[in-house]
């Protein structure tokens, strides 16, 4: 007999699992973010990545179906929110946007409203495409979602009516402080946790573990996947919008292959089965990158100064990813939710 698998992410609502990550994110963001101005920016980017990884966790982690299409929803969210909030004066005068539709150029809404609109647009587009895409499985689903990303990239890269095309959109307002992205990330975290312990989350994980037994128990696989896809599309839209307000610009390349794979790697390295895994993966990848960056710039870390040649950083990050997967293929957290470390000796 096959050994019963160590099934990840079986959760009943537990305060520890929810508040552990909340405390860690808040503490880490404040401690690191307020230590220097450059780290403040890193923390804000990290929070955007975390929301994106959460979006991937909802769908990819719970359903086990690979999606490259979330980059498309993030791209959409970024363009919607960036174009809605950039000042009218800039949109009408910037050289890169002479072809922009007049109705887009003349509109300007509040930052918070635009974030909400970005999430809704991401969710609606994911919901509509999901109706078709969720009929697919395995590699076909992966390639189909990739095709979605390809279409979105090709469209936004070349179209100058609905955006700046291949150029950067200037004048996107930045978040005034750390607390707005932090709060958004925490809200996303709570929503995803509630979703994961709801019947949708559980049935979705059931379909991941055994997609013959799940329908036999009355689960409509396509239906739960469609719901999860739409919800995670909304989160991806929010993540993309947040990213644009941290970067202060929107550039289509920022949401393409690099972004998609970086966030997927964060999820897989941390452990795709849980929110805790999403957090650990994001923290790990960002901090490895940051530490290497500081070394490259010749800064001392904990009083230790190691000089790295330029270009070594990128090699190390990629190597870390490969080594992490070789070392622990189911992720650093093994797909488990947060728990206080148990120092008692195990009985078996």
């Amino acid at each position, binding site marked *: 007999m096959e050994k019963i698998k160590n099934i990840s992410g079986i959760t009943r609502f537990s305060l520890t699992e929810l508040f552990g990550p909340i405390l860690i994110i808040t503490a880490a963001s404040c401690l690191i973010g307020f230590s220097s101005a450059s780290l403040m920016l890193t923390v804000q980017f990290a929070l955007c990545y975390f929301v994106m990884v959460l979006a991937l966790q909802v769908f*990819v982690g719970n359903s*086990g179906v*690979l999606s490259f299409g979330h980059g498309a929803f993030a791209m959409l969210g970024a363009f919607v929110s960036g174009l809605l909030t950039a000042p009218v004066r800039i949109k009408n005068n910037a050289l890169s946007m002479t072809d922009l539709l007049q109705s887009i150029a003349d509109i300007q809404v509040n930052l918070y409203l635009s974030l909400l609109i970005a999430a809704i647009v991401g969710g609606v587009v994911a919901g509509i495409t999901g109706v*078709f895409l969720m*009929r*697919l*499985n*395995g*590699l*076909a689903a*992966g*390639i*189909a979602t*990739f*095709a*979605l990303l*390809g*279409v979105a990239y*090709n*469209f936004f890269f*070349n179209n100058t009516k609905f955006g700046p095309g291949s150029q950067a959109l200037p004048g996107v307002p930045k978040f005034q402080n750390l607390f707005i992205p932090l709060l958004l990330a925490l809200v996303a975290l709570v929503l995803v946790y509630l979703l994961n312990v709801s019947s949708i989350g559980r049935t979705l994980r059931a379909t991941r573990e055994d*997609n*013959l037994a799940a329908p036999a128990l009355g689960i409509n696989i396509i239906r739960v996947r469609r719901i999860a896809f739409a919800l995670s599309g909304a989160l991806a839209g929010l993540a993309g919008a947040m990213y644009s307000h941290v970067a202060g610009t929107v550039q289509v390349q920022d949401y393409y*292959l690099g972004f998609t*794979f970086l966030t*997927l*790697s964060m999820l*897989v390295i941390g452990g*795709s089965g849980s929110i805790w895994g999403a957090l650990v993966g994001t923290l790990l990848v960002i901090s490895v990158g940051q530490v290497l960056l500081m070394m490259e710039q010749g800064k001392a870390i904990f009083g230790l100064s190691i000089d790295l040649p330029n*270009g*070594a950083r*990128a*090699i190390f*990050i*990629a*190597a870390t*990813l*490969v080594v992490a*997967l*070789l070392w622990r*293929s*189911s992720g650093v957290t093994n797909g488990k939710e947060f728990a206080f470390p148990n120092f008692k000796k195990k009985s078996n």
Partner: protein
Amino acid sequence: MIQAILDAISLGGTYALAALGLGLVFGVMRLVNFAHAELITISAYILVVTNDLPLLVSFIIAAVVTTLLAVAMELLIYRRLRGTGPAIMLIASFGLSVLLQRVYELIFGALPKSAAIAPWMSGEVKVAGASVTISSIATVVITIVILLIAGYLIERTSLGLQLRAAAIDFKTARLLGVRSNRLIAAAFAISGVLAAIVGFIVVVENPQVSPMYGVNITILALVGIVIGGISSLRGSALGGFMVGVILSLLNTFLGNARVYAYSWLFLLVLIILLVRPGGIMSKANEMERV
């Protein structure tokens, strides 16, 4: 017109070779090897760097290095990840792909390296009253020859039989005495040789080699193997060929709207996948279950 048709066929042939290399590896171990792109890139780099040597010598060096790199990938990384599931192997292969790109950047620099490889190939000849480039004819010939050799290898030899058996059902093939480690290493070696040939074909047309040189062709070849039919090698090659032909035709006939060629291609891919989830070569209701 003849040039357009030849271009379409030669681009299709190139993608078919890339798709065949990817499909071979996918067949034996369900691995979508993104790092195949870096195999194509290294072949192109070596051809550029060793351009002073005779073409044949330079190509042999490129083929040997590419094959060794492909086998090293399997021995050092993919072998240890076997059985962890396609998603994890795919992410790992992407990590490896980025890693190699950065290593190339360190070795060869971030700026494109270029050299005139086989300059006689960019000359033109008259065929049926129309002038066509030698390189497009050469590409078509090379592709046909390689596909014939690969077809012979796969259909007529014991190795090919094992590869096909493993592609259909790896577990059963092992039970029947197929040596998995050797077979998988062989699949990687062949995919390395194919990547070297693809590298040669593309570098003749476009000698500006940069670290991400092979990425585009690999992604399109991947799209090709999925729409062609993942589980059969013939389907993979056919799918790759179709993607190349469609892309080339779109580029020719879209005129000013050719910047949107990729959008149309991907939309077509989506439609094909929705109608035939298992690829064109599969039966209508056949699809991967997980």
